[in-house]
């Protein structure tokens, strides 16, 4: 039972990371590194929390979170693609803005006015028959809707990236944008599209935290998940199945950390809290010698 609970929590904790990392994989395959994922997640989180609080609709909250993150993602795309600004600087600014805007809205709307309240969360939906399967059933098929969405999104995004002409164009833009341009494909539009797609998924991953993982917003609640997702992408060799597995690895670290804290071991809780971050460093060291990096990653495209 203990193991089932742990693995079930692993899947739940992995879900937001996988969303964000799938988006970032698209973005990086198109040649744009967005280190502002953390900021976009925070925008998604505060938007979803506020929207669900005032409308009571989880669906509306998720849509609003994606749109809000896309709005900020558009700003990033304008600076990084059109203006050709340094992607790292722009991403760093996006993180600050995300932290500031989410904290500001939270304090103005909730903390200052004394409304501190839980919102409705996504319920677990046991799938008929599937959730009855021993062991795997409760782990995989007694989860909330966003977990199922990740199960669906992973194969679809992998298929689109690897087997369709759109995916080919995206991958080509990250490797050799000039060649893409010369055959008449829109480099800028492809990059904008991937950045906006990544932003929407970052918003969704952020939204997951207050309305599926917890039922509240806390300032800075993403706690580095955007950066962890960023690390997962090279670790996974810029592949979608890779980030899915990587997400499960980090999900396990989060789940284990929570379990151990509850277990009241003689280990200081601060060390357990740093577990995901230590794992991130370990993963970075393990993913050295990655040579599959898109050749035009972080290189703005100059037309003509």
């Amino acid at each position, binding site marked *: 039972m203990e193991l089932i609970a742990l693995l079930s929590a692993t899947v739940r904790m992995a879900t937001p990371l996988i969303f964000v990392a799938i988006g970032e994989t698209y973005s990086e395959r198109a040649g744009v*590194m967005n*280190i502002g994922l953390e*900021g976009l997640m925070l925008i998604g989180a505060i938007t979803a929390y506020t929207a669900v609080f005032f409308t009571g609709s989880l669906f509306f909250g998720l849509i609003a979170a994606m749109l809000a993150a896309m709005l900020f993602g558009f*700003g990033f795309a304008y*600076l990084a693609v059109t*203006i*050709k*600004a*340094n992607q*790292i*600087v*722009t991403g*760093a*600014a*996006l*993180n*600050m*803005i*995300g*932290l*500031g*805007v989410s*904290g*500001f*809205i939270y*304090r*103005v*709307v909730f*903390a*200052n006015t004394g409304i501190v309240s839980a919102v409705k969360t996504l319920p677990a939906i046991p799938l008929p028959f599937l959730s009855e399967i021993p062991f795997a059933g409760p782990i995989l098929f007694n989860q909330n809707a966003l977990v199922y969405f990740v199960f669906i999104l992973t194969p679809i995004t992998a298929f689109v990236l690897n087997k369709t002409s759109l995916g080919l164009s995206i991958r080509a833009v990250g490797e050799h944008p000039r060649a893409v341009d010369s055959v008449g494909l829109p480099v800028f539009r492809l990059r904008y599209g991937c950045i906006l797609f990544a932003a929407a998924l970052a918003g969704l991953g952020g939204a997951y935290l207050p309305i599926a993982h917890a039922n509240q917003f806390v*300032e800075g609640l993403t*706690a*580095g998940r955007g*950066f962890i997702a*960023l*690390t997962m992408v*090279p670790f996974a060799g810029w592949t979608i199945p890779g980030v899915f597995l990587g997400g499960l690895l980090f999900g396990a670290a989060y789940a284990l950390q929570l379990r151990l804290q509850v277990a009241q071991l003689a280990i*200081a809780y*601060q*060390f357990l*809290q*740093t577990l995901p*971050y*230590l794992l*991130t*460093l370990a993963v*970075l*060291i393990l993913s*050295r*010698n990655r040579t599959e990096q898109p050749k035009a*990653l*972080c*290189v*703005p495209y100059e037309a003509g």
Partner: protein
Amino acid sequence: MSEPSTTPAMPKPPASRLDLRSRSGQLWGAVRRSLMPLLAVAAALLVGAILLLIFGYDPIQAYATMWHGIFGSQRNISEVLLKATPVVFTGVAVAIAYSCGIWNIGAEGQFYLGAIGATYVGVYWGDLPGFALLLLVMFAGFIGGGLWAVIPGLLKTWINANEVVVTIMLNYIALGISSYLVTGPMKEASGYFPQTDMIADAARLPRIWLPTRLHVGVILAVILAILVTILLYRTPLGFEIRTIGSNRNAARFAGMPVKRTIIIAMLLSGGSAGLGGAVEIAGLTGRLFAHISPGYGFDGIAVSLIVNNNPLGTIFSGLLFGGLRAGSEIMQISAGIPSVLIQIIQGMTIAFVIAFGVYNILQTQQQKI
């Protein structure tokens, strides 16, 4: 990760004295470049004003409160200087690393490690004679922060690990260590609060503007910015650091010890942030507690970026953001406007500097034509 594309230019030969037109053009360019951060801040404040309007505040009143919070009294001015001090240290830290082509987003963690080192020496070695103790406290801060920054430096040079991610992760780990120490091994003897004992009196930095809390650390920050500028622009090591920052491969072909220099630059960078932590402990708080920094390390990024990562410039941008931070705290207390507005303004300032910077480049390109 590929090299940052806006790395500082290689040292240029001085323009001919006879070419007056280009000299006046250079002067005008320099004026515009130095005005750019101010313009960017103004534009960011405008965005802040719009946000305030949307949420039903009066932006004019809010900024008037902020203005009063900055210049209203001797105490307010001293608080601005107190807030500017740590961000000059972290700003210089970001600038050194940037000069070497490394993104040090970890000044926050290095600040913490410096504060931890300084507190350890100040509390447990308090019997040492006066000035020696103070020097050792500062040295411990430098080493604490410096070694913490050497980790991403080593990972960068050994396996080309993305330093942005490494430094961010080390920030979280540093916070965990600090939180562990003040609740565990270094918790105060009386044991009520999650904080350490006070450091020895001899380890405290003297105050310089009584009755305010302003301490000599503000002068140390200015000295550090000047020394680092001299180091970067007037010494062989600085030349190597800047060359590696603008073109790592060229530096390698020129026979420069690229890896060693990156490690040294990271030691100096983290050391600066760590010194900031030590100064905060020895000058202001006198002890360590879990959240000793409200984000000074992250402020340092903005402080360095808006002056194009010029260490001397961080004195001015540090004052600017120190002022905004102090002002926004007053704004929170007296007008109820969340002080996190400062983070929005900082982020927007960087965004505008980026946008205006591109405008500048376009202008110079047109002049060339």
